[in-house]
């Protein structure tokens, strides 16, 4: 499981990527301490909410293991948006292990639970593959999840790792989406290919890939218009955009990421499912984890659809996009 940017971004052999500043590399003095900071911030923000606090599982809960323990456990996971089905699976698995005597004391039960949750989250290929040139990364999702912001932050990260980046403003629907991405391009100091609102997204993307090839750019990040997965016409349009890319590249995009808002409830599973029917989704970006929402829906997506989380968004700053760490995420789900 990659926990640093250099692990996360799979580049050509021989390419020397630098760990971006503000993020610790393998050999920096206090790697754990700093990364923990993200989740400490999460916990602190959680503490500001009484609701979340009451749902938190104190370790004392595991001292006596009875029906109430399992019920409280289910409650905590459901409150974290893990969903009734995934919750029932995990809890009954844990219950069985306890009954069979595999896990005995309270602290071990707690640790085992975090392990089970982390296992669920650890599926498929968890790196972002940018070995192709240009490596095309398509970013999709419903409205308002943070696609454009994610692309801006990702561009900045990749740039500071020493990769050249080009942005394609494929959201030609939302008013001013192109301007928003342009601002990000300036911040990340990278090129952008844009068209006016209302123009064909496919054409913009085609141009972007062409330009990237001509200038030997490493990574093309493609923004798309937010669309509700229930809009078949818009989903068809997305599939078409994907075909345009595939035709131009002679293969699918190197990476297709779906951006999911961590406040999303059980509907997130439908979103991921239907989007992955239109385009082959390789990973999830879980955004807005700096609120009180714990993003448990990502577990349901990983568990039921086999799509791993690759990145998390934890704030507004350009550095607040991080590689996903399953263990920390699982611990945070339990308010740990």
């Amino acid at each position, binding site marked *: 499981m990659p926990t640093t940017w250099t692990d996360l971004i799979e580049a050509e052999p021989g390419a020397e990527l630098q760990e971006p500043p503000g993020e610790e590399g393998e050999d920096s003095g206090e790697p754990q301490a700093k990364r923990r900071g993200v989740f400490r911030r999460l916990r602190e923000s959680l503490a500001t909410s009484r609701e979340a606090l009451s749902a938190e599982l104190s370790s004392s809960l595991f001292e006596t293991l009875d029906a109430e323990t399992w019920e409280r456990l289910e409650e905590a996971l*459901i409150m974290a948006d893990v969903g009734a089905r995934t919750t029932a699976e995990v809890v009954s698995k844990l219950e069985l292990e306890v009954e069979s005597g595999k896990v005995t004391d309270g602290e071990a039960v707690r640790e085992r639970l975090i392990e089970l949750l982390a296992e669920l989250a650890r599926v498929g290929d968890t790196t972002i593959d940018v070995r192709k040139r240009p490596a095309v990364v398509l970013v999709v999702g419903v409205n*308002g999840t943070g696609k454009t912001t994610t692309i801006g932050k990702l561009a900045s990260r990749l740039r500071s790792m020493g990769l050249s980046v080009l942005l394609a403003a494929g959201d030609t629907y939302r008013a001013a989406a192109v301007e928003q991405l342009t601002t990000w391009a300036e911040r990340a100091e990278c090129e952008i290919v844009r068209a006016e609102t209302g123009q064909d997204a496919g054409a913009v993307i085609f141009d972007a890939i062409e330009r990237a090839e001509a200038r030997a750019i490493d990574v093309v990040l493609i923004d798309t218009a937010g669309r509700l997965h*229930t809009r078949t016409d818009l989903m068809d349009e997305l599939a078409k955009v994907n075909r345009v890319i595939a035709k131009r590249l002679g293969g699918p995009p190197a990476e297709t990421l779906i951006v999911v808002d961590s*406040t999303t409830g059980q509907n997130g599973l439908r979103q991921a499912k239907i989007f992955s029917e239109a385009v082959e989704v390789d990973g999830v970006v879980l955004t807005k984890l700096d*609120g009180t929402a714990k993003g448990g829906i990502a577990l349901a997506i990983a568990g039921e659809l086999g799509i791993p989380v690759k990145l998390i968004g934890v704030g507004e700053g350009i550095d607040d996009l991080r590689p996903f760490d399953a263990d920390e995420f699982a611990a945070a789900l339990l308010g740990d």
Partner: protein
Amino acid sequence: MFDQLSERLQGTMSDLRSRGKLSEDDVDKAMREIRLALLEADVNFKVTKQFVAAVREKAIGEGVLESLKPGEMVVKVVSEQLAELMGGSGRDLAFASKPPTVILMAGLQGSGKTTATAKLGRHLKEEGKSVGVAACDTQRPAAVDQLDRLGRQAGVEVFQQGTERDPVDIAEWALGRARSQELDVLIIDTAGRLHVDNDLMDELVAIKKRTKPHNILLAVDAMTGQDAVNVAEQFAEATEFDGVVMTKLDGDARGGAALSVKAVTGKPILYASTGEKLDALERFHPDRMAQRILGMGDVLSLIEKAEKELDLSDAEDMERKMRRDEFTLDDFLKQLKQVRKMGPLTSVLGMMPGMGKAMKELKGANVDDRELDRLEAIILSMTPEERRNPDVIRGSRRRRIAMGSGTNVQAVKQLTKQFDQMRKVMKQMASGKMPNPEALLRGQMGAGRRR
């Protein structure tokens, strides 16, 4: 909208209805189903608990079980509780005795504030008010541009000063402008903020102090999960908002957030935003929504929509034609266009009683509005003669129509066949026999689907 929730509840409800007698055990079983259905719909865990307890108490007490039709009574209790949970009967915006009425929009990032601001502006303008919107989201890049464009599309005044100035100052300045232009309403868009972000929450409070809004509306994404309640509580604490605009209700979110927010904060849902276009904003009617969830249909909304969109004299004309069996494909086309004016097919059908099951089949068959586009194309490729008398359409005409409409011969055949059936059904209706709505629907939809 609320589809999966209503499907589940409808199953349980029809089971209850079908019974002559109910025991406490029967009610408990039904309550367990309801509990799971609500949880799967993202209704807050605690709200679910309370809801189920309240329904159970009412269902078991008050002599419901001894009544003549206990099942019906329980269904009624559930329906009433649902409506109660979502806010009783509808509530209006508060309007100032001395204009402008100020409306402050708040919410998380990506909840749809800016779009909702423009939509509400348009909505109030349609009601005959003069409206201005103030762009105070200086955080998100290009948010000001977005409101500027949407506001102009909506035909309202846009007050913006770029992103350099302090949002609090911009809000105050905009209020001054609204006053001097004697506008009826000023809607203030603000930056999306996390409820745990103290600086931004303070900014919101400052805007509130400076502009003294008559209404503070919180935009809540219908797809929100269990966290909706935390968000609403925190915003309530900071701003004492007055009501909620539920956004993105046109997806297939089960809308549990909608159910929970009122229960926890006591703040009603005033508007529902149901589409990407600027006119896709509706007053939220909790009682009607509860009935829609339970599959009792939302006939009132449908009638209101129809009254707004349909031409009454046209409708009378149609009816006469149907009765006399003079209904042609031209008339069908006209009707099709009118129905489509009322919105996407699925949302119109969702309002009709007894359509819950049919809707499910429609979803499975993936019927969307493009099927109707094809029907229209086929009819438009016919000559006036053919539209009056589809019986003349044979081999070569069929081929020509198929080519002209970009479809195929089978599709044309289907359409004429279905139209023939439709006319038969209309004759039946005219003679007073009511056809089964689901059968009618299946018949019609088949025309476009099996190409």
